[in-house]
Every structure is written in C-alpha cells, then in structure tokens.
C-alpha cells in the first residue's frame, strides 16, 4: 500500500519569502501525486497534480512542485508567499488504475505567514 509523509507539521514564513513544503511517498511504481490546500473552515482545493511527463508541474496561485523519483519526493514551492497563502497543505498519492479507493493523504503542513 502507498503512504505519504509530510515531515513538517508547522512552517512559518515571512510574507514575500520563498516557500518549500516537503512531501515523501512510498509506492512501488510511479504514483499519481497531488497537492491540496485547505483554508480555515473550508474544503480541500486542488493546487496541482502529477501523472506523468515533465517532472516540474505548475499549479494555481503561483505554486509549483517537482517530482523526484530518486528521492521519492514531490515538494511544493512558491517563490514569494502572500498572507492569503496561510492554510493547511496536504500532499496525496494515488495509484494508476487504483482510483476506486481514493487517495492516501499526508497528515498536512500548517503554513503560517508572518507580516
């Protein structure tokens, strides 16, 4: 079975600074990878996804993520954060052909933006 680890429970970043949120997965082949964002009191919104091809994927709100097979990682980045980026971020892994049982989520990283 697949699994996802987000090593950082909380991250604090100053507004305007760069951001990297870490995600490591465990799966025997190339998985489908996702990043979701959850604002307080809201549901989860898809930021970006990787299925195959170019390992650097662009998402909404200026986010990008890079799939590194050798490191089993799919880290999320943003060059300059805004106060509105404060939220909970979830990395998730799905298996090709295994969509019927949904995704496996990491426990999330809480992003705090300092003024």
């Amino acid at each position: 079975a697949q699994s996802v680890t987000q090593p950082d429970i909380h991250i604090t970043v100053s507004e305007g600074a760069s951001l990297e949120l870490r995600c490591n997965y465990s799966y025997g082949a190339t998985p489908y990878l996702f990043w979701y964002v959850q604002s307080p009191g809201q549901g989860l919104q898809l930021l970006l996804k990787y299925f195959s091809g170019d390992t650097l994927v662009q998402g909404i709100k200026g986010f990008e993520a890079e799939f590194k097979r050798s490191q089993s990682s799919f880290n999320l980045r943003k060059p300059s954060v805004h106060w509105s980026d404060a939220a909970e971020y979830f990395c998730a892994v799905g298996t090709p052909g295994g969509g019927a049982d949904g995704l496996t989520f990491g426990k999330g990283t809480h992003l705090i933006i300092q003024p």
Partner: protein
Amino acid sequence: IAGITQAPTSQILAAGRRMTLRCTQDMRHNAMYWYRQDLGLGLRLIHYSNTAGTTGKGEVPDGYSVSRANTDDFPLTLASAVPSQTSVYFCASSGDRVLFFGPGTRLTVL
C-alpha cells in the same frame, strides 16, 4: 454548477443517536468517497463507491455505513454515534483521477 454539497454544515449529536450526513454531486462522477479529518491524523477514508449500486470499505469503516442508490447521492450513516466519531466529514467525488471535495460537515458527539 454547485459541485458537491453536504448537509448539514454542522451538528451536535447525543451519543447513541442515529445520524445521516448527506452528500450530493452534480458532476456525474461515478466514484464517490467519505473522509474524516481529525487534528494530527489528516484525512482518512471511511467508505467509497466506484459506481451506483456498489460500495467498499476504506481505512476506518467501523461504526459507519453508506449506500449508493444513484449516481448523485452518497449518504453516510452513523447508526449509533459515539464521541470518537466527533470529526469533520468530507464527501468527495473523482473525475479524471482528481478528487473534488465538498465543504464538509462538522459533527460533535456528546
């Protein structure tokens, strides 16, 4: 297009009571899911349905049941609620291998 709607938005429930959380989607997705979200534990899959008429168990199915009479609706029932079922519940559907989430139901069992 509403996407996924859930009802109620929040509920306080006495232990031992029966409760059904409603979920409706208008995207005509075949697959639907119920997750619960708990602090420090992330999202955990309760039940899923590949298509109308079929359901399956996820990671934490005990104490919950689901039905899928048609494509649009996927209700989650707690037959006899217990305090450990206090959580935020999210319904989701899957299209093009992407999960779309509803706004959630905050349930408190006292």
